[in-house]
């Protein structure tokens, strides 16, 4: 199908963010397999403690949040997806703090996550309207096609831009403090003084807020199409 020249032009490389993403997914899966075993073995009549308590509190928090923004027919079937999204995104956004390249600073990953939401939005619209009305409203007036594709771009770009800008600005700050302190000593002694405040803003604050915004927006978009 492809001529050899086209094949040789395709450049495949294993990006480092994808490896970190796989590591995060594996760690989360192992944790939840372990937690699931604990929950299965726990006695429901006793007070939960330790890891069981943490899981129950987290699940209840996300469930209540979903209940407050989605119509009732959705909360049961969709809250596992949103709790998965929430956990993965928050761990991925905060992983910049422990020396990972945050996986969400790679556009492939944010685009992949947004594609799942996009498919869910379109599927719910199709289920609600029926095939004929769905296609009719999608292509007429033709600007509706743009409206259907726009969540894909805006959601993925929002997450990607926020995390990437934090990463690049932190890189610039480290370069600047290195240059400034290089005038006095050959060690970057100003960096550790200035950087923690900015790390707290760009990594922790922006990461948590963007996780919340992504989950909220995708749930609202899914609910709006189906109403």
């Amino acid at each position, binding site marked *: 199908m492809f001529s050899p020249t086209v094949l040789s032009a395709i450049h495949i490389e294993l990006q480092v963010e994808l490896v970190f993403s796989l590591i995060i997914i594996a760690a989360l899966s192992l944790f939840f397999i372990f937690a699931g075993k604990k929950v299965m073995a726990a006695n429901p009549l006793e007070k939960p403690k330790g890891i069981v308590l943490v899981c129950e509190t987290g699940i209840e928090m996300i469930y209540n949040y979903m209940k407050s923004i989605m119509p009732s027919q959705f909360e049961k079937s969709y809250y596992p997806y949103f709790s998965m999204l929430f956990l993965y995104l928050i761990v991925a956004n905060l992983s910049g703090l422990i020396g990972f390249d945050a996986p969400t600073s790679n556009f492939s990953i944010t685009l992949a996550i947004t594609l799942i939401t996009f498919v869910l939005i379109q599927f719910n619209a199709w289920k609600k309207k029926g095939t004929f009305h769905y296609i009719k409203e999608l292509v007429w007036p033709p600007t509706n096609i743009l409206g259907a594709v726009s969540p894909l771009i805006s959601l993925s*770009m*929002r997450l990607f831009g*926020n995390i990437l800008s934090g990463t690049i600005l932190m890189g610039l700050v480290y370069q600047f403090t290195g240059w400034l302190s290089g005038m006095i000593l050959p060690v970057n002694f100003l960096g550790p003084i200035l950087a923690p405040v900015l790390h707290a803003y760009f990594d922790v604050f922006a990461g948590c807020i*963007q996780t*919340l915004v992504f989950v*909220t*927006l995708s749930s609202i978009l899914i609910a709006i199409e189906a109403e």
Partner: protein
Amino acid sequence: MTDYGLIAIAAGIAVCAGLGTGIGEGIAASKAVEAVGRNPEAEGKIRTMMILGIALSETVAIYGLLISFLLMFVFPGMIG
């Protein structure tokens, strides 16, 4: 002027997207303060909504920042 100087000017202009965002975020915060003054019990809810709204409107500035990053880091490599 060299090519890189022009690209740097373009990157600076792209970040002007933050102008409107700053005004909008200020308006959102002032309205939130008014709302808390009127109804102090709802402070937690108002704070969450304000942060959500601010994060949403901040996106426009982030788009401008992305364009300027593209201009600074990707574009010079493309024109060689």
